[in-house]
């Protein structure tokens, strides 16, 4: 898979390129600014961007990701940030949620999980950081059906929103896949969602619910 990296911190940029190359990705370029990144879209299958780059050090990376997806609809982007904001997640998802990832920067340290997330995004999946999901969950009103979820069900909901399938959720929580299916059935019933959704559609259903 051909990946382009955009991060204005030289050490992080080079570290990320090394990490991805070691994992078998073809890093076609690693640039330090949004303009440079946008000229490379045709050479890459996916991009990893830092939210914050020069000149204003605010949302250049986010804007570049949105612009990339405007020019090439569905272009897979994983946006990394030192600090997650729900509004940033919303901006990314509003352009269509397929092929979007939004993660805390330090998640790259969990190499297997990070590369797995990147591959899922490149395949058109959606990956949201558990922090964002946690914040969306805690912002819910008191009369919200979310409040009726058990702590375990909330955990499963968060992992679903991260884009994990049942087997991966079972692995993370050290429970059987059957147990996960049961939790998911309960969650969907409590929230009034359609249980027929699977994979990527399931993530979207959960995110749509959390954002409503």
């Amino acid at each position, binding site marked *: 898979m051909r990946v382009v990296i955009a991060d204005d911190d030289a050490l*992080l940029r080079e*570290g990320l390129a090394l990490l991805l190359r070691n994992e078998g990705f073809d890093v076609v370029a690693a640039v330090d600014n949004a303009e440079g990144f946008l000229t490379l879209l045709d050479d890459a299958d996916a991009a990893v961007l830092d939210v914050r780059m020069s000149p204003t050090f605010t949302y250049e990376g986010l804007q570049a990701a949105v612009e990339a997806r405007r020019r090439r609809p569905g272009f897979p982007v994983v946006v990394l940030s030192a600090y997650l904001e729900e509004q940033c997640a919303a901006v990314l998802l509003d352009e269509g949620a397929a092929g979007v990832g939004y993660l805390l920067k330090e998640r*790259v340290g969990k190499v297997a999980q990070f590369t797995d997330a990147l591959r899922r995004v490149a395949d058109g999946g959606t990956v949201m950081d558990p922090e964002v999901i946690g914040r969306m969950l805690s912002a819910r009103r008191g009369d919200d059906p979310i409040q009726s979820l058990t702590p375990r069900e909330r955990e499963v909901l968060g992992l679903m929103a991260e884009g994990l399938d049942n087997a991966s959720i079972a692995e993370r929580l050290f429970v059987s896949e059957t147990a996960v299916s049961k939790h998911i059935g309960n969650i969907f019933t409590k929230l009034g969602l359609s249980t027929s959704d699977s994979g990527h559609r399931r993530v979207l259903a959960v995110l749509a619910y959390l954002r409503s």
Partner: protein
Amino acid sequence: MTRRAAALDAHVAEMRRIERDLHDGAQNRLVSVVMMLGIAERSLETNSDEALPQLRRAQEAATDALNGLRTTVHDIYPPILTERGLEGALRAVADRSVVPCSLEVIGLHRVPAAVESAAYFVVAEAVTNLNKHSGASRASVAVDYDIAGSVERLRIAVDDDGAGGATERAGGGIAGIRRRVEAFAGTLRLTSPVGGPTRMRVELPCGS
């Protein structure tokens, strides 16, 4: 602009500068640490020879993070300002300069802590610079406080009789001074013809 508004502006600018220092410094370096440890962990699973250099790089990045953190924390409000006030702190800078350095302070009123801290940083950095690079035999620091119209400001002059030719490089001492000064909407002028002398003039608007 009212005094209060100017003080608040200086405060906001200072908060923003500190936020950026922390983000670009310690925070990014710690992400590097986590990333390099992640790479090392993967190497240990496959080709353990590659793990050692990665661990060393992680350690270097952690050390960088600590150094950055130390500098940022110290620069927020150097402890010497609490102990001796701005004039006493500037006196200490002049006294420890190897190049004999005079200090003149005129009408120094109470200025906001963020401005005091910036003024101290500017003088300390400039004196460090001239000790390292100028080859001067004498230097002088003058700080005064004045009101021009409704604008209250701290003016700082640092001069030396050295070789001149001081230039502003990215990441260098002068660039650091400019960054700190511009965070307050202040100004920095540097004249340093080859052959000297070098003169630095800084103005820091202050609110109260």
